[in-house]
């Protein structure tokens, strides 16, 4: 545990003696702050004249403004997180310090959890910045605490899953920029898949002339594939949680995703010890 803290502390401090920590927190503050102001002003306009915007009465504050805002923040963190994760392992490989680290008396878990905990601490700062935006509203309006709490939780859990994917990618690639770009590409693909899957028809569009047995098989496979594509995107699971609805499958998704990619990072680091 002491080694985890030592590595985590070094890593966290190095975020802030180099520009990367300031860049990511600055960008998150700027983008989420701007989005907050713009969407709040839009909500004010809607609530002043709901009929103009297609509403029969003043729309629900949490559902129309707060929840989408939290999901947006999660997506923002997803696309900015490569700035955090690209340096975790790749930079060590690139400048050769991995050779030092791997010859010190450390378990792989010390290195992996040390690095992951430093990334989580940066994420926590980002979530605090987002929370500050929302807390500004508290003196003026009543906000459902469940939405506020689970919304912030959804941002943190989504960020945690994203960081674990980035950590794994960083453990595979020697160049930080390449690791960052690959992570960004993976998140982009996951994001696009979610949007595409939503547009897919619920039932496989097969011609009526198709043999019945084959049609049943294809429909089953199609249904499974579609359900998988719908469940895969990281942001989809944040939507319910950001509405204040806590479903075990959403929390499990993020925890399992994190555990899976941390497991893969372990395997990636262990692979150096496989005797060839």
């Amino acid at each position: 545990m002491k080694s985890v803290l030592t590595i985590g502390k070094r890593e966290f401090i190095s975020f802030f003696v180099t520009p990367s920590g300031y860049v990511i927190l600055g960008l998150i503050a700027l983008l989420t702050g701007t989005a907050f102001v713009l969407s709040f002003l839009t909500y004010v306009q809607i609530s002043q004249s709901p009929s103009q915007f297609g509403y029969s009465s003043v729309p629900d504050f949490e559902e129309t403004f707060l929840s989408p805002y939290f999901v947006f923040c999660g997506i923002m963190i997803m696309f900015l997180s490569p700035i955090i994760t690209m340096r975790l392992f790749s930079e060590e490989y690139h400048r050769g310090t991995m050779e030092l680290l791997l010859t010190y008396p450390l378990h792989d878990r010390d290195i992996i959890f040390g690095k992951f905990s430093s990334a989580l601490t940066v994420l926590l700062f980002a979530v605090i910045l987002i929370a500050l935006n929302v807390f500004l509203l508290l003196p003026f309006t009543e906000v459902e605490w469940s939405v506020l709490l689970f919304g912030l939780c959804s941002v943190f859990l989504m960020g945690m899953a994203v960081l674990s994917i980035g950590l794994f990618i960083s453990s595979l690639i020697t160049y930080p920029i390449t690791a960052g770009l690959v992570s960004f590409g993976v998140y982009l693909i996951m994001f696009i898949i979610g949007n595409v899957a939503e547009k897919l028809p619920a039932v496989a569009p097969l011609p009526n002339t198709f043999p019945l047995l084959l049609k049943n098989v294809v429909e089953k496979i199609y249904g499974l594939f579609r359900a998988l594509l719908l469940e895969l995107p990281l942001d989809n699971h944040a939507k319910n949680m950001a509405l204040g609805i806590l479903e075990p499958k959403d929390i499990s998704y993020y925890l399992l995703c994190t555990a899976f990619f941390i497991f893969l990072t372990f395997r990636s680091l262990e692979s150096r010890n496989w005797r060839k």
Partner: protein
Amino acid sequence: MIEVQKLTKYYGSFCALKEVSFSICEGERVGLLGPNGAGKSTMMRILTGFMPASYGIAKIGKYEVHEYPLEAKRLIGYLPERVPLYDEMTVKSFLKFVAGIKGLSSGEWKNAVDEVVHTCGLEEVYNRVVGVLSKGYRQRLGLAQALVGSPPVIILDEPTVGLDPQQVVEIRELIKNFGGKHTVLLSTHILSEVSLLCSRALILNMGKIAAEITIDPSRPSGEIEQAFLKAISKEGIR
């Protein structure tokens, strides 16, 4: 203190080390000589647990490096060839970090760091950022991190490469001052360095131990040169 038996390392189909065996006693200073690509760095990386051997046994103390990596690594201080350091840290924070990783308590690290700073002559740059240090100071800092916690085995991979003549003399003096406190394995291709610093030299060529020379300071230095040239010629390979 260091025991190697039939150590073999393949990179794909290329054999970098072929059944290398040797042993080094406690307090001994041994030089690992050889031309470029002889397998010196591979040998050191296996001994320090950075990479596994394909076959064979590498022991530090009583611990086999692949089976008991943590126990073996606790006995080692290692200076890699390129001296990789965290450029954004200060000398003080880097050495404190190394002391923490090597398991020294908060009460112990100050003394341990003070000792290596004094031994390696880093007082002047103690609060400076590593990234602005000269090559000589970087090499000293690399040595200092290897010495933190006073491990019984010190493994140095080409510690004077790329330094100017004055820095080479300084680093050699530092290594000489290790005295009998540490068992030292030093890789180099500078023959005079081995005769100055070591009591024995192992000559590696094409992944095999081609010769073993006991260094006698009273004998002319040309003898090592001749033995080395003989060993790396094809006839010299056992």
